[in-house]
């Protein structure tokens, strides 16, 4: 079985996003960028599946600017076997929409023929939570979203999903697109020898045109603004004051 893992380069989750003064977006110049945390979890799961002998090859794919190479090198150092970089823009401020990402990934799948695609459930920048579902639809495959447990069986996988009421288990026919949630696993760190080895692993660079995918943008971002901010309030002296405040605001 071949596993495909799309990985996105995003503003590091520890860095506070700053809205640009002209309202055109979030400032991504000279800030720390990292692999989307959910994609790290997806990749970790792919590596574990391969380590158990249930997969032969892991391909990491990243779509965006040239610098996404770094993200792919990280993926290779963690344990992906090879990488595909789709250079879709030269402007880091230009976020590629999930629908376009799904089109690009679907085109790659028709060539690579993976049986399992493991995606992060959402990118922590645009928070869309859509790529995996759109990709599954484009490929007419089964989908298993928000996975917190995955068991690979013969022709299907059993996935436990985090849903609003608790947990739901489903069986999904292979080939399948899975989107992963936070509690699936804890991603490993790449070791130094593996980081060195990763430099020699194959990293292919292509463009959307090579895949005959048209770059469209269905959602125009009109403006980006700061959310309503909250002011720090009052630090109370004692429990009685706290009880009073709670009582004032319960059912009030």
């Amino acid at each position: 079985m071949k596993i495909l893992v799309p990985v996105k380069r995003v503003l590091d989750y520890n860095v506070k996003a700053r809205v640009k003064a002209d309202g055109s977006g979030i400032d991504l110049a000279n800030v720390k960028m990292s692999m989307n945390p959910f994609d790290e979890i997806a990749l970790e799961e792919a590596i574990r599946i391969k380590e158990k002998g249930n997969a032969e090859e892991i391909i990491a794919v990243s779509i965006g600017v040239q610098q996404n190479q770094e993200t792919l090198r990280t993926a290779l150092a963690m344990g992906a076997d090879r990488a595909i970089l789709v250079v879709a823009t030269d402007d880091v401020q230009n976020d590629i929409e999930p629908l376009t990402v799904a089109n690009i990934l679907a085109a790659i799948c028709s060539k690579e023929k993976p049986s399992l695609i493991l995606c992060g459930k959402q990118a922590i920048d645009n928070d869309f939570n859509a790529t995996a579902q759109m990709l599954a639809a484009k490929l007419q495959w089964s989908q298993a979203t928000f996975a917190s447990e995955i068991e690979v069986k013969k022709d299907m996988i059993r996935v436990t999903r985090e849903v609003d009421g608790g947990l739901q288990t489903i069986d999904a026919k292979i080939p399948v697109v899975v989107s992963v949630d936070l509690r699936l696993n804890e991603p490993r760190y790449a070791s130094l020898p593996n980081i060195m080895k990763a430099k020699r692993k194959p990293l292919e660079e292509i463009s959307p045109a090579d895949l005959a995918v048209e770059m469209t943008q269905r959602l125009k971002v009109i403006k980006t603004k700061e959310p309503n901010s909250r002011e720090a309030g009052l630090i109370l002296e004692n429990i009685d004051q706290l009880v009073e405040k709670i009582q004032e605001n319960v059912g009030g």
Partner: protein
Amino acid sequence: MNILVLAEINDGELAEDQTSKTVSAASTLGKVDVLCASNKCADASKKLAKMENIENVLVLEDDLFTHSLAESYSDTLLDTIRLYSHIFAPSSSFGKNVLPRIGGILDVMVVSDISKVISEDTFERPVYAGNAIQTVQSIDKIKLISVRTSNFDAVPLNGTANIKNLDYKCSNNLTTFIENKIQASDRPELTSAKVVVSGGRGVGSKENFEIIEGLADKLGAAVGASRAAVDSGFAPNDWQVGQTGKVVAPDLYVAVGISGAIQHLAGMKDSKVIVAINKDEEAPIFQVADFGLVDDLFKVVPEIEKKI
């Protein structure tokens, strides 16, 4: 313009709050039709027909929809969906699962998790864990929109919608439901509760979490948790509040032993009043709290419970 809302129904039970608030968001643009697809529709369709601003309740009774698996939204049902200019669903695990799949089939980009309807093609939505609000305009012929329900009020229940039966055969030969592990609870639902008491890593253990639950029960509140508390096994996953958990906006949110990471704030900073209890006066939660107490939660929480 014609608008369709996908009602959330789990095994015959209408998710009333989520669906009503989605109808409310959608009906800022006009009257709406609602799709009531489930294994048992009698009860849900009656409740839907009473919601204001609904013109038609479209009933599709089929065991295929018992657990709303995304692949079931297929075949002739899609031909109906395609006739609408706007399709709304709650941004719950149901809507997040189903709506983008429909988008993939129709080749339409989904506008996820909107917090405001500006016009028929323009919406506001939070990005970067709520650290920015984006105004986006959709150029797609069909608009697919999931709604952050905590930003909208429920609709009044004085409607008189028509109930119409759809006669479609949908299919799903890709996924099979195995089981649900869903804790029944007498507490109010987290996303619609007026008061939420949440515990974080500071609570220390599953046993200690009972003091959070005790206070919540005293206040008639729902119980929430930080990711750290859920990951450590103190609380079940469906209690998680935050960027990747539930988004809540109660009248009162009490954060106990929670530091206030951006990802947690993303899920609760629209609460009317925030109260924080933390022994670290530097904890970022105090920067958003209306009232804070710097003290040991193990001393404070039981005492509050006693005094209320």
